[in-house]
């Protein structure tokens, strides 16, 4: 028997009502969940930016607060850690569909320039921005710093903060001075030569910055020509060779400084943010740990190199977002707002120089490459 029209209508209403009701019931408890899931789905549907980063900024990118800000700004990232020196080799044309990274975040200007150079050769419109920075410093120990002061190679700039005369220190090192040859060396009267330990400059940026700084100390100026670059690097090669084995990852000499101590590493050339972030994480530093600021020093800009417009927007966000800038300080970096840096570091008890004013630039990319090559050749002999 065919259904009457009225009956059909009633069933439709009923069906709709029942369905709607059931749906309403089903949704009531899950509404909030769903909204969040939708958000997550929206974020997940955004293809994450592929980044190649150095160890220095790895913890920053892993920080849940950073991930949250980036998700909120619809800029999720997917990062992989690679040595700064190997980054230029990862520059690929063809965009992310081709597996090419969207951005690079190496530990310094030299590596960033290498990346930019590789991008230029591959016809990629790379752009650079430096969202935070950190000066190069020497992590040392109070007794060692006092010996340097007694011998005119350093001066106290405040309680537990020292400035090092890089020209005098470099001369002493090249003269093969031993610690026990120095005046008032009682606290560190050992037969080892006065040397600053660095990471392997063939593999890491901080070692290269040490070469840049000592070249300035030796010649009195920034090296600008190839002939001077070669002759200077030849003289300075021994500062690397004589160290013996050098760690070839960025935290190598810093790990030894912290874990093994003064017996292995009386002086370590590091980024300031390495010791500052350590102090912030541990809420203090080990007994006797002090920072020596080379006079002048090099300020290492952490350079963000973007390969496309989306990545460029991420770089600008890192440089301008107040929350991200604040988190960067917690990882030991300096930002334009130096008061914020000082007030963050103060509770740790680590003494830092408020304003690093005596600063030189590293030589140009070509000159640096020339000097690194020269030293590398000497070292592999």
């Amino acid at each position, binding site marked *: 028997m065919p259904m009457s029209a009225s009956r059909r209508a009633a069933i439709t209403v*009923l069906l709709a009502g029942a369905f709607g009701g059931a749906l309403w019931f089903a949704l009531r408890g899950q509404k909030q969940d769903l909204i969040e899931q939708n958000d997550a789905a929206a974020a997940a549907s955004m293809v994450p930016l592929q980044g190649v980063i150095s160890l220095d900024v790895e913890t920053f990118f892993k920080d849940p607060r950073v991930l949250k800000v980036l998700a909120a700004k619809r800029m999720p990232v997917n990062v992989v850690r690679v040595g700064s020196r190997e980054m230029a080799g990862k520059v690929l044309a063809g965009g992310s569909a081709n597996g090419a990274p969207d951005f690079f975040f190496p530990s310094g200007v030299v590596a960033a320039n290498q990346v930019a150079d590789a991008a230029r050769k591959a016809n990629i419109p790379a752009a650079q921005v430096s969202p935070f920075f950190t000066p190069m410093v020497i992590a040392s120990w109070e007794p060692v710093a006092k010996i340097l002061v007694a011998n005119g190679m350093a001066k106290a700039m405040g309680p537990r903060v020292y400035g090092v005369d890089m020209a005098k220190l470099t001369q002493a090192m090249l003269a093969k001075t031993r610690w026990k040859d120095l005046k008032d060396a009682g606290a560190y009267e050992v037969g080892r*030569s006065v040397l600053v330990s660095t990471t392997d400059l063939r593999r890491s940026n901080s070692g290269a910055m040490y070469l840049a700084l000592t070249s300035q100390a030796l010649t009195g100026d920034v090296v600008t020509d190839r002939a001077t670059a070669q002759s200077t690097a030849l003289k300075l090669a021994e500062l690397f060779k004589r160290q*013996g084995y050098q760690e*070839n990852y960025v935290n190598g000499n810093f790990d*030894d400084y*912290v*874990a*093994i101590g003064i017996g292995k590493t009386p002086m370590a050339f590091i980024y300031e943010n390495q010791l500052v972030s350590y102090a912030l994480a541990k809420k203090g530093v*080990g007994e006797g740990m002090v920072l020596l600021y080379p006079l002048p020093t090099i300020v290492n800009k952490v350079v963000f190199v973007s390969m496309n417009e989306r990545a460029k927007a991420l770089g600008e966000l890192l440089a301008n977002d107040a929350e991200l800038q604040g988190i960067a300080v917690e990882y030991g970096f300096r930002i334009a707002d130096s008061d914020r840096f000082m007030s963050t570091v103060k509770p740790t008890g680590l003494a830092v120089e408020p304003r690093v004013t005596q600063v030189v630039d590293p030589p140009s990319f070509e000159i640096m490459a020339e000097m690194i090559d020269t030293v590398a050749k000497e070292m592999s002999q």
Partner: protein
Amino acid sequence: MKALRVLLIAALLAACGKKEEPPPPPPPAIPVADFTVLATTDLKDAQPLEEMVLKATGVRLRFRYGGTMESTEAVLSGDAKADGAWFANAKYLLSSTQGQGRVKLQEKIMLSPIAVGVSESDAKRYGWDKPDLKLTWKDIASAAKAGKLNYALSNPATSNQGFMALMGVVAAASGKSEALAAADVDRSAIADFLKGYRLPGDNSTYLSEQFILQQGTRVNAFINYESWLLSLNASGKLREKLRLIYPYEGVSTADYPFMLLNDTRRADYVKVVDYLKSEPAQTWLARQTLRRPIRPEIAAKVDDLLPRQGLQVELPFSPDRALADGLIAAYLNEFRTPIASTFVLDTSGSMNGGGRRQQLIQALHYIAGADASLTGRIARLTQREKLWFLTFSDTVRRPQAFVVPAGKAAARGVAEQDDSEAMRQVLADVRDSADKLQMKGGTALYDAVYDALKLMLDERGKNPAYQYSVVAFTDGESNQGRTLEAFKRDYAALPEDVKAIPVFMVLFGEANEQALKDLVKITGGRVFDARKMPLYSVFKDIRAYQ
């Protein structure tokens, strides 16, 4: 109407409920691939970490152990067959660009400095118990020369402890503050130091066992990682405790980098490292293995377990390969007690089967070859070495002697020398003789081993400054000449000195392994199954006893 509505709702709920049905039983668990780790043998005491890592991270860690040099070689050549590596010291590996290329990531896990553990009574007698003692490696070498220090140490050619001790001696003797080169090496210091080398071996477990047996009679000191010495002290098995001396300005600290080799396992690697550096794992390592935590704040919490360090100045590690290779070559070719051994070669007809003849020839070529790799040169015949081939089938033939000439000793330095013409000729003779082996007849194995022992005994009487042994290659089915019983009787009648001559049986084919084990039980020595072990391992192990 109402019924219809209920029905509808029921249907809807059922439809909804369908989605909420318990999920189908999970598919049979896909076995998680093991994360294999090539580890140095001194890490055997850390094996319980496999279980702990699995529980904490879900990663199935599997350790495989090897000596430092052997493992370094495996990683360098890309032959490690492992996802990661964990060495006490990876500086030898990481000072070459090839090694750096193999290691994708590295993270130091813990610390243990090398120390000289001296029996407390002797330490006191020599005045080495003072807190401000400044004993250098040079002093240690002098004490060894004077007979005051007789020590156990793992092989300088295969282990980090042995190698670094040798480095400490040459660095202290050179008087240079850094950048020691092969040409600077003071050879007399090496000779002095090695005068006290009484208990050689290949791994810390074996050496610890032997040290417990021989402390106070043959040895009074043990050079090893602090962690092993402290563990021995805590074991209660020593006749007396050891006083740990950290050589002044010559401490070499193992820093145990955990390295990623297989880049596709990066995520698991990170999990494992995060766990190994966590407080529970670091504290466990400190308490159970007496290694120092890499994280100072955790070290501070367990500092009651470990001796206070004071100022320990590290020996810089020289990345100079010529120095390292030169030192190892000099140790093997000039400074160690030279080896004299008789190779008993089974040429019975059964050796023709199953490619055994070919295996035997390959083995002989291996030791007389020109393999200059880290591992090859340990297995290889060295300068001053004496070797006899004693072939047998139904009867035992006359021995054929080979003497590898000594090299020209340099006045100073340990620059590695090419093989001399004379040495190359001897190696070629050994290979030629191997190629000419003809297999036929029966197997008079016990007669041959007996004759070899007598030959070595005679030689030992004439020239005691060698380390004698018998190495027998056989498929092990003796069917001619003496029985095992007769061998036992005749062996017992030999002079007591024969006990210093071990017999190493290298086994091919489907032999009666038990009969060979019974033989070495009488003579001392070991059975090596060349079907299950790479030849390198066989020879490396034999060398460790020679």
